[in-house]
């Protein structure tokens, strides 16, 4: 036979159960996600709570730098705008900036292409269907599809006989 607890005690017990569960889950989540800084922790929590948004002001600065072909500045601004690396458009533009910096007439820069590949992979991971196409024609991008850009980056990172041809351009055919 169960004892009947006074209402106030039952309320405290219910609050205790809820608080313990929420706090316990939060601690387990912190140990699983392993944030390195308080800012990272805040971003990860915002993503988890579905309230994460890109910093519009930083994104606009990045876009302006991108249009002015100041790709290093653009990368920094885009990275600051999307610290959790969750926005596909921002990640695609970071990848495009690295691609623009790494693409060469004689050879491609492997470091820039590797960084671009990481960013384009993050872009595709952040999309629900694993596919992304940017719809802003004013940017004058060589590749508007993330999959096509990734393929181009992969080809650029592979060592092929064409890499030793000084007359061949490093770029492939754009879709």
């Amino acid at each position: 036979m169960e004892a009947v607890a006074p209402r106030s005690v039952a309320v405290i017990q219910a609050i205790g159960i809820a608080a313990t569960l929420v706090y316990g889950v939060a601690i387990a989540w912190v140990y699983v996600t392993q944030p390195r800084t308080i800012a990272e922790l805040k971003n990860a929590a915002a993503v988890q709570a579905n309230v994460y948004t890109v910093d519009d002001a930083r994104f606009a600065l990045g876009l302006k730098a991108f249009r002015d072909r100041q790709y290093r500045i653009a990368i920094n601004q885009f990275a600051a705008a999307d610290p959790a690396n969750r926005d596909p458009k921002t990640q695609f533009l970071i990848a495009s900036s690295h691609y623009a910096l790494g693409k060469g007439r004689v050879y491609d820069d492997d470091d820039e292409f590797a960084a671009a590949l990481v960013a384009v992979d993050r872009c595709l991971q952040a999309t629900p269907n694993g596919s992304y196409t940017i719809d802003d024609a004013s940017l004058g991008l060589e590749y508007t599809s993330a999959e096509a850009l990734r393929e181009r980056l992969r080809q650029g990172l592979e060592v092929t006989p064409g890499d030793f041809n000084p007359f061949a351009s490093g770029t492939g055919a754009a879709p």
Partner: protein
Amino acid sequence: MNVALRQHVVLPLILLTAALLGGLRFALPDLEMRFVAPPLTTLLLGSLLVVLYARSGLLNISRDWLGVERTTLENASNGLTLAALFIATIQIFNAVLPEDTLFFSLFAVGFGLVFWNNLFVPVRPDRLVKSLAGLLLAAFVAKYVFLASLFAPGDSITRSVLQSLVRGVTLGTVQGVAYAPATGYTAFLGFALYLCGLWLASPPRDPDADRLYDLLASSDRLSQRDRARLLAAFRGETVDAALVESDEEHST
């Protein structure tokens, strides 16, 4: 009301905070956070210690925590508190055990032997908490004062000599892990919170029970007469008859 608030809200939150801080480290040089999961050995030590808590009476599960005579809500709340205590216990070992393999093994074996020994001796809950606090504090000092200063980065000649000496004595098996001093502060806070949690979870002291424990623990200090009276009381006999019997035995 206050007791309910303490047992169902404050206590589990204190224990969970101790659990959170137990695995928190700050890496040099940027004070980046690292949340270190507890090694398997700490689970074994934690289990042993919780058994010791139950055996010493610090946690009397059926009397104070769980049972059919309690409401479902109370059982659920108490069950969660006990789970939080177990997790906090594991994490406290995670905090105070050195991360170097050699010292980790030494400390873990030391803790295990002390707990194993305590399983077979009668121990009062408050004294168990005191001895545990001393043990954990010793491990804390060894890890965060001695080993941390020994393996702290820097160009001190004395430190280099000591490091070489320790590595030489241990045949190079000691590889110190250097964390920022903030790690020690958070570990100490976790340790203090864990002890607060234990104090909150322990049953209220009964002076009569304490006196009885002291009497039985040091029965050799009792006179023959007092011992006879005590035994008579246990047997349910009248004290006078026991005293007469004791005097007769004494005279023969």
